[in-house]
């Protein structure tokens, strides 16, 4: 038996980009599982605000841009005061892309990299520093994408950032020596939101090549995120693809 104690289930989880889509589904699911949840996004949607109103003792939300590091730091301090020390992080906030690389402006390239790669690395650093500094253990789940592993036109910078987060997941798991479990979940294309960047021909092609016969739904991803945050497993440094075997 190893001397390293197991990492306990997360009890206070911070979710970036938690106001809609998969992020909102993750927040809702974690609440149902009894977890305290802090969520931020550029805009707090009525759905997220309603969750906060319904669970005032277990939810803290804020309108914070993930690229605004001082605002993110202030939000984390608020969360710790209201809900207790953060021992779980879901890096979900991201911006999409729908443009050929040659015709994507340099400003847009910088924005995609800043939002999807730099910001989650900074948020992770912030949260890990607080966990380690307080002698706590915890878990991190990075929401990446099948784009990190397979090529799709119009998503060059987006794919690069998601691949970067997959790579960071592995290295961080090594670096943190088992005190934190760090994993990634890589969904296939959702029927909504990010899939708007693909043409109907591409989407039809993906569906035809998917053995399960349908695009991934957020409801099919949240149990995996919950498992990584809550269940006792020895999964660490992995990227779990949820795409109905479309990419296999």
């Amino acid at each position: 038996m190893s001397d390293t104690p197991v990492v306990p289930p997360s009890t206070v989880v911070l979710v970036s980009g938690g106001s809609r889509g998969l992020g909102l589904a993750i927040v809702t699911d974690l609440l149902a599982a009894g977890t305290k949840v802090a969520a931020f996004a550029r805009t707090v949607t009525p759905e997220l605000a309603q969750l906060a109103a319904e669970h005032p003792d277990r939810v803290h939300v804020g309108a914070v841009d993930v690229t605004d590091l001082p605002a993110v730091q202030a939000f984390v301090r608020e969360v710790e005061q209201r809900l207790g020390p953060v021992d779980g992080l879901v890096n979900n906030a991201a911006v999409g892309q729908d443009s050929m690389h040659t015709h994507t402006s340099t400003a847009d390239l910088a924005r995609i990299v800043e939002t999807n790669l730099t910001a989650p690395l900074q948020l992770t650093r912030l949260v890990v520093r607080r966990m380690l500094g307080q002698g706590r253990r915890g878990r991190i789940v990075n929401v990446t994408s099948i784009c990190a592993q397979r090529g799709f036109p119009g998503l060059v910078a987006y794919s690069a950032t998601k691949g970067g987060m997959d790579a960071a997941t592995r290295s961080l798991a090594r670096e943190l020596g088992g005190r934190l479990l760090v994993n990634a979940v890589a969904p296939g294309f959702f029927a909504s939101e990010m899939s708007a960047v693909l043409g109907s021909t591409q989407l039809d092609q993906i569906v035809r090549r998917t053995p399960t016969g349908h695009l991934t739904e957020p409801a099919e991803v949240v149990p995996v995120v919950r498992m990584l945050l809550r269940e006792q497993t020895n999964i660490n440094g992995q990227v779990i693809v949820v795409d109905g075997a479309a990419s296999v």
Partner: protein
Amino acid sequence: MDELSRAQIRDLMAQVLANQGKALPDDDGTDLREIGFRSLDFSELALRVEDETGEELNFDAPGLRRIATVGDVLDFLVTLQRQ
């Protein structure tokens, strides 16, 4: 340099096709699929326009997906230069 006219862009489009051994029809209503003008050809044309004007032409894919005819290509690039 000033923006290119529709006719000048048409000439460049003809060059892109000529490099592939294809001819640009006179009819602006010609479907791009008939002449095998694909998204990368559009990209090449846009870059040629950039070379002439010295201004980057950046755009998202949805606008590109609405382009179906030779005239759509020319209209798109004329409009894009003014943005």
